[in-house]
C-alpha cells in the first residue's frame, strides 16, 4: 500500500495508508494511551481514552480506529486532549465501583494506572456503589460487573480468537452488562473455561480464583515456557511469586497458540488436587510406605539388574526430549513405548487451519482434546465462514459449529464436498485416522492435521519411543508418567498384570493402583527441557519453580549407582 504522510506531535512520518492514527503514532515512537484496544483483536473505539486532536476535524477522534490520510496533522498531548482523557477517566470511575484499595487488580490495573498517570485524585461526579451481583458461578474465575468498564475485550476475544461467541452485552449505555448466551450465569453457559477473557480484562472485573490477591504485576516474575498437556504445545507465561507459579497465561508471541490456552494448560495445574509424590513410595501389600531414598532405589536397581533385557519403558507426553534421551542411554537395548503413538503423516500446520475454507474433523471432539486447535476451527467457522463437517456419531462439542454431520459410512459425500473446496483441512485423532487418510488421499488439495494424545509425543517418537504400549510382558515395567492425569483404564489394567512396575510420577494417583514403587518426578513447572509442538517446532519448557524432587536424570543416576 502506498505511504501517506502525517505529522504527529510535530514529527512528520510516512506510514502505510489504511493505518490508524494509533498505528502511525507507534511507528513514530509516540505512545498513545489506550484501554479498550488490544493488539490481538480488532479495535472498536469503545472507551475514548485514546482521543487525539486531528487538525480540521471538529471533534477529538479515537486514535485506535481513526484512519490516517495524507497531510494529516495530529496532536496527542495537547491540553485539549489531556483534558478530554481526564474527563473520560472521571466518567469511567464514576460509573461503577472503583474503590481500588479493595480490588485484587490494584497495582496491575490498566484503568488505575491511567488514573495515576492523569493525576485523578478525587471523584468529580457521583461516588459509585456496587449495584450488580457478582457472578461466581464459574469454576475458575469470578466476574464482578461492578468493576467492569465495558471495554468489550472479553467479548471480542471470545468471538474473534476463541470462536466460542459465548459473551455479549445486554442493555445499553451505562446500564450495559456483560452477559453469557441468553443472560444465564456464566457457569451455566457455553463458556469452555479457556480463560482468554480473564487474561485480557484490563480491570478487576474478571478475577482468577487461584491467584487472586497473590501479587500485583510488579511483585511477580514471568517465565516463558510451554504447556505439555497435549501435542499442540502452547506457549505459556508462568506468573511466579516467591518461587511459586500462581497463574498461567498464554504467551501472545508464541506459535502456534498466539496467546490462547485451554483449561488444561491454564487452570488444571493450579487446581490439582492429587497427592504429590515427593519421596519414593514402596508398596507393602495393600499399604504404601515412604521409603528412604536408598532402600527404594536399591530395590528398583535389584529388580532391573535381575530382569536383564526384560525391561519395558513406557513414557507419557510429559517427558521432555532430554529426559527421553537420558532414559534411552541408561536402559539401552530395551523396549521403549508410548501410551499412544503420534501420527507422522501430518501435512497441515496450525497456520493452515487459519486459512481453511472447509474443516473435516474425523471421530474426534476438539472441545475436549487439542482444544486450541479446536478454537482455530471455531473461529474459522465464525469469522471466515468456513464450513465444518463432523465425521462420526456421538456427542461432539463442536456440533453447533458444524454445517453437516455424517457417519463413517458416508465418506464419499464428504470427499465430494472436499473436492469442491479450495483449502480443505482434515483434522483427526487416532480413532479417525483411517477415515482421515482416505479423504486426504482422494482429495489432492486436502491437508491433514492429525493429533495423538501426549504433549511431547512427536519428540518421544524421534527419541526412539516408537511403539504403542499394548501390555507387553516384561520382568520390570518402568512407567515415566510425569503429571499426566488422563490415563486410559486399559493401560492400568495392562500394568496390573505385570510382575514389577516402577512408576516415576509427580502425583500418586492413579499409579498407586498399579505400581510396586513410585519414584518422584518434577512437574513441568519444575523442570527445563525441550518439547516438540504442533507443526514440529521445538519449544522450551522452562523451570519456574525450584524443587527438591530429583530430576529424572538424577533418579536414573541413583538407580544406576545402586546397580553398581
Amino acid at each position: 500500500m502506498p505511504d501517506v504522510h502525517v505529522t504527529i506531535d510535530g514529527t512528520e512520518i510516512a506510514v502505510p495508508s489504511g493505518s490508524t492514527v494509533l498505528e502511525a503514532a507507534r511507528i513514530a515512537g509516540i505512545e498513545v494511551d489506550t484501554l479498550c484496544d488490544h493488539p490481538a483483536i480488532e479495535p472498536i473505539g469503545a472507551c475514548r481514552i485514546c482521543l487525539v486532536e486531528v487538525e480540521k476535524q471538529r471533534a477529538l477522534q479515537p486514535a485506535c480506529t481513526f484512519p490516517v490520510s495524507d497531510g494529516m496533522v495530529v496532536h496527542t498531548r495537547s491540553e485539549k486532549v489531556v483534558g478530554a482523557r481526564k474527563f473520560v477517566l472521571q466518567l469511567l470511575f464514576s460509573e461503577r465501583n472503583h474503590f481500588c484499595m479493595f480490588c485484587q487488580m490494584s497495582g496491575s490495573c490498566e484503568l488505575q494506572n491511567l488514573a495515576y498517570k492523569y493525576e485523578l485524585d478525587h471523584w468529580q461526579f457521583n461516588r459509585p456503589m456496587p449495584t450488580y451481583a457478582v457472578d461466581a458461578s464459574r469454576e475458575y474465575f469470578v466476574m464482578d460487573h461492578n468493576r467492569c468498564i465495558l471495554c468489550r475485550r472479553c467479548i471480542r476475544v471470545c468471538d474473534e480468537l476463541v470462536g466460542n461467541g459465548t459473551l455479549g452485552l445486554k442493555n445499553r449505555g451505562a446500564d450495559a452488562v456483560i452477559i453469557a448466551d441468553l443472560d444465564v450465569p456464566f457457569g451455566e453457559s457455553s463458556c469452555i473455561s479457556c480463560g482468554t477473557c480473564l487474561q485480557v480484562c484490563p480491570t478487576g472485573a474478571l478475577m482468577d480464583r487461584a491467584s487472586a490477591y497473590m501479587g500485583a504485576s510488579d511483585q511477580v516474575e514471568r517465565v516463558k515456557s510451554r504447556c505439555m498437556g497435549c501435542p499442540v504445545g502452547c506457549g505459556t507465561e508462568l506468573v511466579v511469586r516467591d518461587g511459586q507459579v500462581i497463574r498461567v497465561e498464554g504467551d501472545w508471541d508464541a506459535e502456534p497458540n498466539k496467546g490462547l490456552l485451554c483449561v488444561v494448560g491454564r487452570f488444571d495445574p493450579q487446581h490439582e488436587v492429587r497427592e504429590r509424590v515427593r519421596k519414593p513410595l514402596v508398596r507393602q501389600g495393600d499399604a504404601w510406605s515412604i521409603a528412604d531414598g536408598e532402600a527404594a532405589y536399591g530395590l528398583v536397581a535389584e529388580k532391573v539388574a535381575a530382569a536383564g533385557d526384560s525391561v519395558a519403558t513406557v513414557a507419557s507426553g510429559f517427558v521432555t526430549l532430554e529426559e527421553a534421551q537420558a532414559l534411552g542411554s541408561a536402559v539401552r537395548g530395551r523396549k521403549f513405548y508410548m501410551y499412544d503413538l503420534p501420527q507422522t503423516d501430518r501435512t497441515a500446520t496450525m497456520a493452515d487451519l487459519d486459512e481453511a475454507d472447509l474443516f473435516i474433523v474425523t471421530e474426534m471432539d476438539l472441545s475436549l482434546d487439542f482444544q486450541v486447535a479446536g478454537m482455530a476451527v471455531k473461529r474459522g467457522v465464525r469469522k471466515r465462514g468456513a464450513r465444518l463437517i463432523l465425521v462420526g456419531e456421538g456427542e461432539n462439542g463442536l456440533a453447533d459449529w458444524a454445517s453437516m454431520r455424517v457417519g463413517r459410512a458416508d465418506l464419499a459425500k464428504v470427499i465430494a464436498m472436499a473436492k469442491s473446496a479450495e483449502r480443505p483441512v482434515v483434522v483427526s485423532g487416532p480413532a479417525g485416522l483411517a477415515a482421515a487418510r482416505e479423504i486426504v488421499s482422494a482429495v489432492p488439495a486436502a491437508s491433514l492435521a492429525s493429533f495423538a494424545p501426549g504433549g511431547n509425543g512427536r519428540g518421544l517418537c524421534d527419541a526412539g519411543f516408537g511403539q504403542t504400549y499394548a501390555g507387553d510382558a516384561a520382568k520390570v515395567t518402568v512407567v515415566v508418567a510425569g503429571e499426566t492425569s488422563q490415563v486410559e483404564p486399559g493401560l492400568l489394567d495392562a500394568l496390573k498384570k505385570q510382575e514389577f512396575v516402577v512408576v516415576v510420577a509427580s502425583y500418586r494417583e492413579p499409579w498407586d493402583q498399579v505400581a510396586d514403587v513410585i519414584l518422584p518426578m518434577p512437574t513441568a513447572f519444575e523442570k527445563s527441557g525441550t518439547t516438540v509442538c504442533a507443526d514440529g517446532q521445538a519449544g522450551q519448557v522452562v523451570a519456574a519453580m525450584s524443587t527438591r524432587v530429583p530430576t529424572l536424570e538424577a533418579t536414573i543416576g541413583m538407580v544406576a549407582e545402586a546397580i553398581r
Partner: protein
Amino acid sequence: MVLEQTKTEDRAAFDEGPLEEILDSFSAQEGAVIPILQRAQQAYGYLPEEALRMISKRTGFSLAQLYGVATFYSQFYLQRRGRHVINICDGTACHVKGAPRLVTTLEEELGIKAGETSPDYRVTLEVVYCLGSCALAPMAVIDGQVYGRLVPEKVLKLVRELD
C-alpha cells in the same frame, strides 16, 4: 430484564413453522438480524427463547449477540406479552397530575408490578414517560387507544372491561 423461564407447556407448544418461513425468506441476506427479530416478534408476539436459539443456529449470530440486540432496542420483548397492553404515562405532567396513583391502583387490581404481565397473559402493565399528550394528563394508552384525565376509578373500570 430477565428472560422468561419458558414453562414446559409453552416449550412444547413452540411452533417452528412461522419462524422457519421467516428465516427462509432472509436466507440470502447476511446480517439481517434486526428485520428477522422484528418479523419473529410479529409472528409470536414476543421473542421466545426457542426462537432466539433457532435464529442463532440459522444465522450464525451467537445467542449473546441476539440477546444484546433484543435488549438494546426497546421495541423487542423477551417475555410473552398480555393480550392487552396498558401504557400508563408517568411523564412530568402526568406525574404531577397523579399518575403514580393510577399505577398503584392497577398494580393492586392485577396483582403484578409495572412492567409485568398477569400470569394468565390477559394484561401487560407498562409505565412510559410522556406520550406527548400532556394536555390530557394524567393519560394512558390501552391497546393503542388514548384515554385522558384519568382517575383511579375510571382506569379501573376500563381495565375491568377488557376481556
